[in-house]
């Protein structure tokens, strides 16, 4: 560029900057004029002036009541009217102008949450809500600029690695104050505010005014902590993953000193990978305990048992709970003598976590208790299953109904051909299952995808599960729970028994929770099931397929 054009470009930029600065100044002046007009017209100022005048001239005092009365009578009249705003195209001056923002927002079905969250919470909640993270220095600006459905604060936001570290501590009043302003703004806009006490936090946090306080942990995010594709050669030495200070007292300190325990405190991004590397763990808090369980470890847990995990869920040899530190060492020794968690144990453990201790379950419960019923249901929409079936007669329909009623994870829908209208379905309807009838499809046998595709087309749920009928194909009560859980862990497109043998990797012969080239689909994403591609071709076309054997009912 020539020197002359350089100069004119500089001058043009300078002129543009000056014009912007001038426009900004005009806007500020206008704002001040509006405020001044409001003040001039305010009753407080008027009363103040009258009283001041009376004080300055005591002889006017007897006239004071009359002056005030006239003021009251004349309220609103003669108030200075604000000047018209300057002509500033694109200028936004009202809070509600955020509603005009045209940039594409989140999908309509996702809850929009302004979040003050602990490390890892963003990853844990990401599949379920649309998060707008707030920082201490931008909380006001961001919150005022976006439309949100909920303000969510977790107590773990006060922990290390979070920009809100020390929130609620008297030494971080600036952070508490910043959050307080957001809560006040939310109140003004009618946006509900929730404090999720998922961890110990400075008590000052609880003094802020939330609409709802939830005393519960966040559960385990199965898409983060899971046993998918575990390596065969995992470490047998027990792992403690957490702050070292928890091991400072005897007898736990001695365990570490003797080398009987690997103690590490990794930050969030490395945590899941670390937990997967160990077959045995010591859990000192319920959240870490369920994370270990989901990662396929045996756990010796000291202290409170994870909420929702009763003795009838996770097998006793997988989760050993003790309340006395002196019992930790012998329990670890006993657990270490056991082989790594087997297929059945793992399935039962994951099922228990999926049903009662997974993050979406906790989140849904929180939203329901906070009065956000629709959102509570929406959070679990990724678990909704439409069962696809072609019962031939009433007897088969009864068997179908028996299987579905017995499911620990209730299906949301049943899709059958239009001709399959059986009385047995009333039982399902009475339990809230939506029964849909789809257009007839040619009955060419199970090998053809077309019949399922047509039924899948009519479904609305995220997943579809073909029910094949016949005594040999009856579903165990945990069937849908296990399959959907596997889907939540893996983000697979289809789950079912592997059709191809896998390379030996040290697991059981039927290798569960590993990706594979082909499966006999027991659970399929509706978007995949609708396609005419046969299941044998799915792998080749890039679908993610997870192997999981069927559990047969007793």
């Amino acid at each position: 560029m020539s020197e002359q054009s350089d100069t004119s470009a500089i001058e043009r930029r300078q002129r543009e900057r000056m014009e912007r600065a001038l426009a900004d100044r005009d806007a500020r002046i206008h704002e001040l004029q509006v405020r001044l007009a409001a003040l001039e017209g305010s009753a407080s100022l008027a009363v103040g002036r009258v009283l001041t005048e009376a004080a300055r001239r005591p002889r006017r005092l007897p006239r004071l009541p009359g002056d005030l009365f006239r003021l009251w009578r004349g309220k609103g009249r003669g108030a200075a009217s604000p000047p018209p705003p300057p002509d500033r195209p694109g200028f936004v001056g009202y809070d509600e102008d955020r509603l005009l923002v045209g940039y594409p927002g989140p999908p309509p079905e996702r809850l929009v949450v302004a979040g003050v969250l602990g490390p890892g919470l963003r990853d844990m909640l990401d599949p379920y809500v649309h998060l707008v993270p707030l920082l201490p220095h931008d909380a006001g600006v961001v919150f005022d600029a976006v439309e949100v459905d909920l303000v969510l604060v977790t107590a773990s936001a006060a922990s290390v690695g979070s920009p809100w570290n020390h929130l609620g501590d008297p030494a971080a009043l600036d952070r508490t104050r910043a959050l307080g302003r957001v809560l006040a703004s939310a109140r003004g806009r009618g946006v509900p505010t929730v404090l999720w006490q998922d961890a110990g936090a400075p008590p000052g946090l609880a003094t802020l005014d939330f609409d709802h306080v939830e005393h519960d942990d966040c559960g385990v995010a199965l898409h983060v902590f899971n046993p998918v594709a575990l390596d065969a050669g995992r470490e047998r030495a027990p792992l403690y993953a957490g702050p070292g200070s928890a091991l400072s007292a005897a007898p736990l300190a001695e365990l570490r000193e003797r080398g009987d325990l690997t103690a590490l405190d990794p930050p969030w991004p490395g945590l899941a990978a670390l937990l997967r590397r160990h077959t045995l763990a010591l859990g000192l808090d319920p959240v870490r305990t369920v994370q270990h369980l989901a990662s396929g470890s045996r756990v010796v847990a000291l202290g409170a048992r994870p909420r929702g995990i009763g003795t009838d869920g996770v097998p006793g040899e997988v989760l050993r709970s003790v309340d006395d530190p002196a019992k930790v060492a012998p329990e670890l020794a006993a657990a270490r003598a056991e082989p790594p968690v087997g297929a059945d144990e793992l399935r039962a453990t994951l099922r228990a976590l999926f049903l009662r201790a997974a993050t979406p379950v906790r989140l849904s419960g929180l939203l329901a208790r906070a009065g956000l019923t629709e959102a509570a249901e929406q959070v679990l929409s990724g678990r909704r299953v439409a069962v696809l079936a072609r019962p031939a007669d009433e007897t088969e329909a009864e068997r179908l109904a028996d299987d579905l009623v017995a499911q620990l994870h209730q299906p949301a829908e049943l899709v059958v051909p239009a001709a399959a209208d059986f009385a047995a379905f009333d039982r399902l309807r009475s339990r809230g299952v939506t029964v849909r009838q789809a257009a007839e499809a040619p009955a060419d046998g199970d090998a053809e995808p077309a019949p399922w595709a047509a039924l899948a087309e009519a479904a609305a749920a995220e997943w579809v599960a073909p029910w094949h009928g016949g005594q040999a194909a009856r579903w165990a009560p945990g069937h849908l729970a296990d399959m959907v859980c596997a889907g939540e862990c893996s983000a697979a497109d289809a789950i079912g028994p592997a059709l191809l043998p896998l390379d030996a990797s040290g697991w059981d012969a039927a290798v569960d929770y590993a990706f594979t080239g082909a499966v006999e689909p027991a659970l399929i994403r509706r978007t995949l099931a609708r396609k005419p591609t046969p299941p044998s071709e799915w792998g080749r076309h890039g679908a993610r397929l997870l192997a999981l054997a069927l559990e047969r009912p007793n």
Partner: protein
Amino acid sequence: MTAEGPRRPGPRAVVYGDVDLNIIDGSAIWAQSMTQALAEAGCEVTLVLKAPVRTPRLVDPLTRVPGVTVVRPHEEGLLPDLGERLTPEQAVALLARMDAERPFDLVVVRGSRLAERAAAEESLRGRLWTYLTDVPQTLSGLTPDAVAGLTAIAHASRYLLCQTEELRCFLEQAVPAACGKCVLFPPVVVLPEGVAGPGQADDPLTLVYTGKFAPAWNTLEMTELPGLLGDRGVRAELHMIGDKIHGSDRDWAKKMRVALESTPGVVWHGGHSREDALRMSAQRAVGLSWRAPELDASLELSTKVLELGALGLPVVLNRTPMHERLLGADYPLYAGADATSVADVLARARDPQVYRRAADACARAAADFTLGRAAERLRGYLDRALPALSGRNAALPSEPLKVVVAGHELKFFTRLLEHLRSLPGVEVRLDQWTGFNDHDEPASRALADWADVVICEWCGPNAVYYARHKRPGQRLLVRLHRFELYSEWPKRLAVEKVDAVICVSPHYAELTRRRTGWPAEKVLVVPNWVDTEQLDRPKLPDAEYALGIIGIAPSRKRLDRALDVLERLRRTDPRFMLHVKSKLPWEYWWIWKRSEERAYFERVFRRIQRSPELSGAVVFDPFGPDVAVWLRRIGFVLSTSDDESFHLAPAEGMASGAVPVVLAWPGADTIYDDHWVHADTDQAAAAIADTVRGGRFDAERELGREQVRAAYALEGVCDRWTELVRGTAPAAAARA
């Protein structure tokens, strides 16, 4: 008489608490212990009583303490129309009158109403030592009126005495005027003689609670404990001492009374004197100080916990950050929110090892709250507030030395100004210029004619002016910082009229000599001061993952380099964060009007937004004088500038117990030990990572703290300035 001259008398202190010493509660104990501690610290103490003495139990011991005088306004008829007790207005009037007759060096007051009145009394201004209680402890309580009241008190006070670190931090962030004035004065534990606990758990396990009965004090829930322990096979007795049943809820009050009177295993002793209550507590095994969670946010420490600990009892209490600092995170008797958790904890307390651990932790904690410790603290505060009486300074001159301090921006001189004002025989007047080159000329002229010594803060038009108007016999001292060296003003300064040019670092002194050609012996180095006492506070947990930078504008402060360090660290450990305490560049019009500055900052801020490593990892904390509080969260203070004359931030960081991380700007190694200076951002990041991973954070911080105390502590720098002002420093002899 001593070898150096007449013995210097101790400071004269007056103590007045808006408390009735006939009611022996915590506030009365405070008045007694404050008086005793001041006396032990070397003061002549006058204690003024609020009410006539009916119960001499607290007052009588004080009359036997040497140096303590008890003034009884009622008995001595010191004021007309006295009611049963002095009102705050009467108290302040009496204190002012006593002060006018014979001035006090310090006026110690307690009670917010009293403090407000005292703050409004002009004659007491600057000498108040205000003990703050009943201040708002939550954000919602910080109304504009409350803040205004506390601000007025802060302005009028020399010190604000805070019971806990938590209260001090809260106050400094809520009331900027309190920054630099808040010091700690924790409770003093005073026990009857020869009283001690049993030293072990007994059978039945005896528990004790003393105090009021109120819902949030969980006293109703406590009565369930004998039953809950019985369910666990543990025989237990709960001894309740007190007679005030609070609670506006009548149903609750009724339930409480019934529970006290008729619950099996509960023994209600009723109300007793403080001393008797302590004796009775000492006969039990475990103390209870368990509260409802809503009280966890209190900024005050329960004196009862300390008293029970001093008796040798372990105490069951809530787990709060304050209690964890006091007793440790692994203290075995923290209770949860319900009575069941308390019963669980008490069952464990029967184990002799657990009992011993808990009792020892409580006793160790209480040991820091003795009268001796209180006196030691007060000696430190007295030394600082009254350096003349500390014996550190030279003998008094025969007549006042008249000193003028002139400049437009005095923020780097404030503590020195305070120090000069406190020197005996020194009268200080201020010539506050309204702008770098704007001043009230007639006023400046009058001050130039008046002063024996003129100190020009900044080598600018002020120095040129005072050099031009220097009178014979006067001394002129000019402090040069940095930017002046690159301006026209040093060239216009008649340096032959200047007695000393003070630079804050050897590097800048050398630069000044080279650039100006001024006589080398005139250019001295007196470093910047660091208030090591104020900054020395406990770090918040996990501070080792917090990098801090103070002041990021203009661009030569090189925020981008700090981001480089952070990015490198976060690649292996995302717990590291960068905290920025600064005004934002667009708040400085002279910076923001420059296009190259705007371009730089736009790039930097865009980088923070878009970098995966940096997004969410940089926090901009509000600018303000609460640096001491802010530094509690910081483990490493960065200095990444292109150049600096001194750069106070790393030194302040060191005083706070943070590790300095200095990139090698010119002269950095003349101010900071080589150990802290790094060639580039990679080396700086590696040093930080090694320090944290290698577990050397505490050792490094201690090293830094020792170094900064030795080199830049406020007291040492003040002494140097005293020598310069008095003309007793080697190169500061008066020149005509």
